[in-house]
C-alpha cells in the first residue's frame, strides 16, 4: 500500500488584480508553491459579476497545499486582506503522496 500523509489544502478566492499579494503571502510563510485556477463568474453580497477582465473586476482561485502550521500562519497573514477586500478562504485536510514536498 502506498503511504499518504495529511496536509491542508487552502483555496483563496481573490481579485485577479490582487493575486500577487496573496501569492507573496504564500511565499512569505514558506510554502513551496501554489496554482491558479480561473473562475468565470459569481455572485455574492455585492451582486453578480462575470468575466470582467476588461474592467479589472475578475477573480481567481489560488490553491496551495501546505503543512498545518504553515497553513494556519497563512490564514493569519491573509485575514486582514480577506476582510478589507472581501476575499474568501476555505481549507481542509487532504491526503497527499510524497508529503516531504509540502
Amino acid at each position, binding site marked *: 500500500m502506498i503511504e499518504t500523509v495529511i496536509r491542508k489544502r487552502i483555496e483563496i478566492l481573490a481579485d485577479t488584480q490582487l493575486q500577487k499579494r496573496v501569492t507573496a503571502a504564500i511565499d512569505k510563510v514558506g510554502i513551496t508553491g501554489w496554482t491558479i485556477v480561473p473562475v468565470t463568474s459569481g455572485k455574492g453580497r*455585492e451582486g453578480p459579476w462575470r468575466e*470582467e*477582465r*476588461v*474592467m479589472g*473586476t475578475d477573480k481567481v482561485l489560488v490553491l496551495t497545499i501546505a503543512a498545518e502550521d504553515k497553513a494556519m500562519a497563512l490564514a493569519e497573514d491573509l485575514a486582514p486582506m480577506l476582510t478589507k477586500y472581501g476575499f474568501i478562504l476555505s481549507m481542509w485536510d487532504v491526503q497527499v503522496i510524497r508529503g516531504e514536498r509540502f
Partner: protein
Amino acid sequence: MRVHLGCRSVRRKRAAVLKARYSGKPEQIYRNRFCFSCNSWIVKGAAMFETAIQTFTSPVVLFFVLGLLAAFARSDLAIPEAIAKAMSLYLMAAIGIKGGVAVAKSGIDATVISALGAGILAGFLLPFFAYAVLKTFGKLDRINSGAVAAHYGSISVVTFVTAVEILTGQAREPGGYMVAVMAAMEAPAILSGLLLARGLGSKDEGSQSTGEMFHEVFTNSSIVLLLGAFAIGMIGGPDGFAPVSPFFEAGFKGVLCIFLLDMGLIAARRMMDARAITWRLTSIAIFLPLVNGVFGTALGVGIGLDAGSAAALGVLCASASYIAVPAAMRLALPEADPGIYLTMSLSITFPFNVLINIGIISAFAVYLTGSGGVVP
C-alpha cells in the same frame, strides 16, 4: 429659414461627404449649402441637428444598440473574454500606431503642446466640480464621491475612439496628437479623486497601496500598448506603417463594431443588476458628461484647436473611465462601492456619450468654430 431634415438634400449631402472623405477634399462641404429641393439655404441650426442625428446611421453605433437590446431581451449572446481582451489590445495598438504616424508626419508644435497642457489641467480640475455635485446633490459620502469624481475626470478610450470614427465620418478628423492627449488625461484625475476621498492629512497605511496603484496605472496594459504603439508609429513613420496597415487599418472599424456590441451587452447587463443607483446618481451620470463636454469643447476652441480636435477634447472631458480608474480605486479605495462607480460610468454615462453626447459635442464644436456652414 426652415430646417431641412426630411428633405432629400440631406441624403445627397451625406453621400457627398462620404465621397469627399474618400477623395480627400472635405473642407468646403459644409459651407453655404443651398437646398435645391426646398429652395432655401440650410442653416446652422439644421446642420447641428443633422450632425447630432448622423450618429445613428453609423454601423459602430448600431452594433452598440444591438448589444443593449440583446442584453435587455436576456439573450445569452456573449463575446468570449479572451476575444474581448484581444479586441481591446488591438484597438489600443491601432490607435496608438495611427496617432504616432500622424504625429511623425505633422511634427510637434505649439498646438500639440497646448492641447496636452489643457488636457492634463482638465484632468486635475474636473474631479473637484464632480465631487461637489456628487456630495451635495448626489448625497454620496466622501469616499464614494471621491471615487466617482476620479472616474469622471479620467477618460474612456472606447468613447474617444467611437467619437473619432463619427467625427471622421463627418469629415472632421481630430489631429493625431489627440491620442497623446488622451493618454496624458488618464492619470491626473486619480490623484485629485484620492485627495478628495482621503483628505489631505490622513495617509493611513495608504502609502503602500498608493505606490502599487501608481505602478499599476502607469504600467497597465492599455497605456503601455497605446504609448508603445505610438512610439512605434513615430519611429516607423508612414513608410514603416505601410506593410502593417492592412491589419491595423482595414480591420479597425469592424473590430470596433464587435467591441461596441460587447460593451452594449456588458453595460446593459450591469444596468439590469444595479442596486445602488438612485435617480439622483442617474441624473448626475448624464449631467456631468454634458457639462464637461461643453467645457472641454470650449476649452479646445479657446486654445485654437480645429473643430474635430476640439470636439475630441470635449469627448475626453465628457467620458468617464471604466477600466483604469476602477482598477486603481479597487486598490487604493477598497471601501468605495464598485456598484456605484462602475454602474454610473459604464451603464449610464458611456451609452449616453456614445448615443447622444458625441453628437451634441460635435454639433457644439461646429457651432463654436463656424465650420458647419452659416447663412450668408
